[in-house]
């Protein structure tokens, strides 16, 4: 004879399954609605541009902007601008990532390094470092080195802070057992400390990436030359509004792809971590 508890368990399991089903349905519905509302936005853009309420200068229609991007792609300028912006932003970001993690790790190991850099990082982090752009121009000119330098300067701070916080939060038991089993300092860093701190380090990188993109675009706008920011500014100077809107569409696509890619890399790298098992909200 089946006991009541069994039945209750069965009911709970069934509820679980149906809940999972509902969640999947909800997800499908949500992504459908997502595509729908983005399409709605584009449709609204197109309709509003043609309604006669705004001049084509204020808001060129979406199809005009798409044609502009297409011509730019055929002419080849798009690829040069895109490539240069991506190159500078990623090189700057990678230097900031490696440098920031290294500095954070060194600071956690050595109290003198910590003493020296701690106030610089904590005062420098909330500063609008973009204000130093004219100083960078004065020192390094307006070419790639200057553009990459300001990206590095700005994107390093969140990485250092996140690395420090991540390392500080590593469980002492892990360190004790590793040391007990005879791990060298070097092995401790690479095999225990950095992996255990990696969720927070990755969060720091996820903060640094949008900063790198924002700053790269600003640097290109101020310094001019090739690159998506420079092209947008050039179009704006010649009152070429399809060019300006084409720029924002291109930059939006780049930002979207890079930031989604970063989130994917996080999920892959942290597949072993308990956060991967938790339901995501994003």
């Amino acid at each position: 004879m089946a006991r009541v508890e069994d039945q209750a368990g069965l009911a709970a399991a069934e509820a679980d399954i149906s809940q999972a089903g509902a969640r999947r349905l909800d997800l499908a519905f949500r992504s459908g609605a997502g595509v729908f509302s983005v399409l709605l936005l584009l449709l609204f853009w197109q309709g509003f541009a043609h309604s006669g309420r705004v001049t084509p200068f204020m808001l060129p229609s979406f199809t005009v902007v798409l044609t502009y991007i297409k011509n730019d792609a055929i002419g080849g300028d798009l690829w040069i601008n895109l490539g240069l912006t991506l190159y500078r932003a990623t090189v700057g970001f990678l230097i900031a990532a490696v440098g920031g993690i290294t500095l954070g790790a060194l600071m956690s190991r050595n109290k003198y390094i910590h003493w020296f850099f701690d106030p610089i990082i904590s005062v420098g982090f909330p500063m609008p470092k973009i204000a130093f752009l004219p100083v960078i121009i004065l020192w390094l000119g307006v070419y790639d080195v200057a553009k990459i330098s300001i990206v590095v300067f700005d994107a390093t701070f969140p990485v250092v802070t996140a690395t420090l916080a991540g390392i500080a939060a590593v469980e002492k038991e892990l360190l004790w057992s590793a040391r007990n089993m005879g791990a060298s300092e070097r092995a401790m860093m690479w095999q225990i400390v950095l992996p255990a701190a990696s969720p927070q380090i990755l969060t720091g990188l996820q903060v640094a990436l949008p900063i790198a993109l924002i700053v790269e675009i600003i640097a290109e706008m101020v310094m001019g030359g090739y690159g998506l920011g420079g092209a947008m500014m050039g179009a704006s100077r010649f009152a070429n509004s399809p060019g300006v809107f084409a720029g924002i569409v291109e930059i939006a696509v780049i930002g979207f792809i890079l930031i989604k890619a970063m989130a994917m890399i996080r999920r892959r790298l942290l597949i072993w971590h308990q956060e991967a098992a938790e339901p995501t909200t994003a």
Partner: protein
Amino acid sequence: MTAIKTLIRYSPLVLLALLWEALARLNIVDSLALPPLSKVAVAWIDLIRDGELITNGEASLYRAFMGLLLAVLFGGVLGMAMARWRTLDIFVNPLVELFYPLPKSALIPITVLWLGFGDGSKILLIFLACMIPVTIGAYNGARGSEQVLVWSARSMGASRMRMMWDVVMPSALPELLNGIRTGLALAFILLVSSELIVSQQGFGYLIGYLGSTGAYEGMYAVVLTVAFLGFAADRLYQVLMQWLLRWRE
């Protein structure tokens, strides 16, 4: 005792300042590229005296404040409404997700195209850019508010508005305040850069103007002022945050 500790803690900054002065004075680096810090201080006092730093600073801070205020009002309400009202959530959330990864600086030329070189374009820029983190903060915070509290408030006869204000808002506050903090940092970045690019007034304009006329001491003075203000604003905001959240354990 704490004074000495603070002194030791921040002494690297003093060392950096001394190093700066020495490098410039001993001509190890070109004093044009790096004027001595003492000369920068003199230039700063001059800029305060003739009022240039004050008038441009006022213009900048007004823009940043207005943009951020609008973003907090609109973003806060939108985020909380999205969290409580599913239909709105389903249709607006994808748009928030679409604009979240946009490097916000790309909006600079567009706002100039719409509103010109003055205050309006900067306020619009800061409003649009800061609205995203504020909305996300309010949304995440309000979603975390306990359903039981909402139900009890409703069953005790609280109106929807009152329930939002008395129940949802306080529980959303910590995350909302974090979103605003991100917005505050973003506001400073976009303010200075938009003023550097196109403006006739403001900190960024003054930096660009002094730089182009070769008055590098003055340029450094304004750059350091802006950097300090950004830092001070963040620290003040943290104090405000702690005060607003003092009821929490």
